[in-house]
């Protein structure tokens, strides 16, 4: 999981960082939930200004690739196929519990709609 930045490239440094993180996430090299280095640390390592890395992270966050959880840091977001898989696991856990409670499908759907606020 190596990021490389070439200051002599015609591609702006923030775009190099953004594109490489996006590429690693898309290729599965960075799994959902993986914590990324802090802006300051990555900027220090790559010899960039903190604002440059912050801009790359901001654009990644706006496109849903990463999420920032306050002081805990920046993490690779759960999205796309991963989101579907996580939803399926959560549904199976929910259904298992409902079977223990002997709740039928109609009642379960009613509870789900209510939980969604509709």
């Amino acid at each position, binding site marked *: *999981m*190596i*990021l*490389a*930045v*070439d*200051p*002599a490239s015609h591609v702006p440094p923030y775009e190099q960082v953004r594109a*490489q*993180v996006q590429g*690693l996430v898309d290729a599965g*090299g*960075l799994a959902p939930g*993986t*914590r*990324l*280095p802090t802006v300051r*640390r*990555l900027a*220090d*390592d*790559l*010899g960039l200004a903190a604002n440059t890395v912050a801009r790359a992270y901001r654009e990644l966050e706006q496109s849903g690739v990463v999420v920032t959880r306050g002081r805990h*840091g920046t993490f690779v977001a759960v999205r796309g196929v991963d989101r579907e898989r996580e939803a399926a696991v959560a549904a199976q856990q929910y259904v298992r519990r409902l079977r223990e409670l002997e709740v039928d499908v109609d009642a379960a759907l009613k509870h789900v709609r209510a939980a969604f606020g509709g």
Partner: protein
Amino acid sequence: MEQPFVVAFIVLVAAGVLARRATPALRRSAAHAHARRIDLRLEPADEDAVATRLARRTCAGVLAGAALGVLTAVVLGRSGVEDFGWSPTWLSFLAFFLGTALGSAGVAWYESSRPLAAGPRVARATVPSHADYVPRVERWGARAMAVLSALVALGLVVLDGTGLVELGDLPGALVAVTIVGPALAVLADELAARWLIGRRQVAASPLALAWDDALRAGTLRDSVTVAICASAFAPFVLLGVVGDGLEGGWPANPGVGVITGAFLVLLLVLVGVGIASLAVQPEKHFRRRLWSVGTPGAAEVAIGGAR
């Protein structure tokens, strides 16, 4: 061992290490030997830089270690603590290890803060942890030894307090040091590791980053060695001092049996940690964790791998 012999031994060890890195050719040779040991490629282009960095770290470590070890031996020799048997000797060696770790940490700090020429840079997109550099058996070994050290001291206090076994007058200060000292050493190791891992890593290629990891792993392992040695040293000294005050032998004096039993248990745990540590090839641990097969850049840094 008499303190002058300790001083001579430490000076000889330090001189030997320094002599093996006295010339650029020797430094390159040592760097290649290290590269083979950790299975890390050493390219001709990086050879001099890596050899210099390795030698700087080793020499700074051994010089600081020798200085602290000799200073400790001299101070203890003048203060007349030879009555404690081997304790001053081991304390001098412990000071040597501590100095080595401090010297290595100093070089690590210097290297992470030195200015570098502009140019392409690489960085890791993930956040490495202490566990990536130091094997679990060494980190948990240090903690286990610290707990064992405290248990030995507390056990002696409880046994003495209940009157079941006569242990004579327990040295209060030494008991306190045996309980608190190792725990503080482990805590200091963890804090030092957190500080070092938080420092920047400057590299222009994956191979340079891998070598930085290698140096970092070496420094962190020096640090955990100090914690392990301190955790082993304190209870051994306590048992030695308490044992020296006992008269007669086992089974006439149950106290002798208790002290000997505790000594053997400690020795077994220490040997167990040592053997387990050697078995996992700790010097290659960071390679397995951070540069394992399949990791991007791993083939590029391995000896004989694709370039």
